[in-house]
């Protein structure tokens, strides 16, 4: 047990260190090397936090979906732990995106919040997955909570494209995509140095995400183990 745990712990440590360096480099690149935006000036640098964090959150919700589906299918505790962990971290990153966006919005748009499609969608995502976490915490019986949450994890995720479409059709005001534009490669309209900063910082966020996820997953596993241990001892 302890022997098997050691290399895992070590590789998690490496992951953490990597995440930290990548974020540090990304921040340095974004805050110092990359040029300020032509129109927005220095505040635009928030983008290096804003964009990677929402992309990571999307990934996280996808993992919630996968974990939920697997849990319903196989009934393995670890899938549930995965879904739960991913949901928690996803909520965290979504909140981070909104906070960073709001801070960005204040100087550029002059408001903390506006009812544009993408903002609204992000807020709805936050609400859905907060609902997911609340649902879990409000059901006493653990296995019942797990299945209920899994159902919500699946339905919620399948609903997102529909929500996305409808909210999008409803109104749009947010920046038109400048990086992920459909018919133009990104390097043609963005300063390459900005793009590098963004890429590094995105890599950093991904590494950070997996670091946090593995920690949170480990926490869930340990909870199970402690329970099993205490059960063994018959306390």
């Amino acid at each position, binding site marked *: 047990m302890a022997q098997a745990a050691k290399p895992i712990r070590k590789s998690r440590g490496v992951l953490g260190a990597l995440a930290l360096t990548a974020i540090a480099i990304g921040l340095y690149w974004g805050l110092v090397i990359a040029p300020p935006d032509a129109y927005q000036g220095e505040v635009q640098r928030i983008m290096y936090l804003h964009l990677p964090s929402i992309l990571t959150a999307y990934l996280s919700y996808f993992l919630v979906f996968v974990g939920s589906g697997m849990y319903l299918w196989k009934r393995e505790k670890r899938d549930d732990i995965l879904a739960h962990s991913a949901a928690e971290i996803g909520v965290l990153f979504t909140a981070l995106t909104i906070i960073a966006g709001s801070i960005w919005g204040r100087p550029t748009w002059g408001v903390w919040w506006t009812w544009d499609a993408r903002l609204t969608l992000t807020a709805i995502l936050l609400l859905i997955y907060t609902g997911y976490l609340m649902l879990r915490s409000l059901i006493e019986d653990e*296995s019942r909570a797990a299945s209920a949450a899994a159902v919500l994890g699946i339905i919620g995720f399948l609903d997102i494209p529909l929500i996305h479409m409808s909210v999008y059709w409803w109104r749009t005001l947010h920046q038109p995509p400048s990086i992920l534009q459909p018919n133009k490669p990104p390097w043609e309209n963005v300063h390459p140095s900005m793009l590098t900063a963004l890429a590094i910082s995105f890599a950093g966020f991904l590494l950070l995400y997996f670091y946090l996820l593995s920690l949170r997953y480990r926490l869930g596993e340990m909870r199970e183990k402690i*329970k099993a241990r*205490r*059960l063994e001892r*018959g*306390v």
Partner: protein
Amino acid sequence: MRLSIDKLSKAYGFLWALRDIHLELQSGQLVALLGPNGAGKTTLLKLFAGLILPTAGSIQLDGATFAPGALDLRRKVGLLSPADHLYENLTVSENLRFFASLYRRRHSPAALVQTLESVNLGPRRDDYVANLSSGMKCRLSIAKWQLLQPELLLLDEPYGVLDGSGVDLLEGFLRAHCAGGGVVIMASHHVSRVLQLCSHALILHQGRLTFNEAKQQPWPSFDRAFSEFLPHGGS
């Protein structure tokens, strides 16, 4: 009809309600499930009924286990828990009819009325279950399981609310059920009654099956186990 339980355990949080139960039961057995308060009797019955899932181990009924979709299995098991599992706002006979169709048991209206008469509820046929006394609800449950004819019938402390004639009625039903090849498992604290009736006795103590024998006359091993695991009184 064959019930086999292997290494069955159930934990609630940090508490083992049941631990490593092995058990084999066969057609015609009328099993008394004894044990002090909190021994795990209700938990065991709920597991047999498939209402809760085991933490470890398995329950097999004629080789099949409970799983979502195992509907044929469900038809074979009945749980009589006095005063529960009846629709309060349907009348006595509506309840019977509803459950009979749910289990696809066709009964002529006359058979239905006759069953109600036999449990002394004939005149209350069109009363709401909500307006019955506790003993009457138990009698109705007896009638219900008489009609539904499960192979394995589980009972959780049915004596408490029944009067003398109700007890006779119940015992007659249980004897007939076993004679017809069914299995009965009845949890009860009314040791003297139960001992007369049963063909087999189990004693649970702190989640472990400490006694498991067919009835003999006299039965010194039971007396020893009884005085060890069910201390004091107990008529």
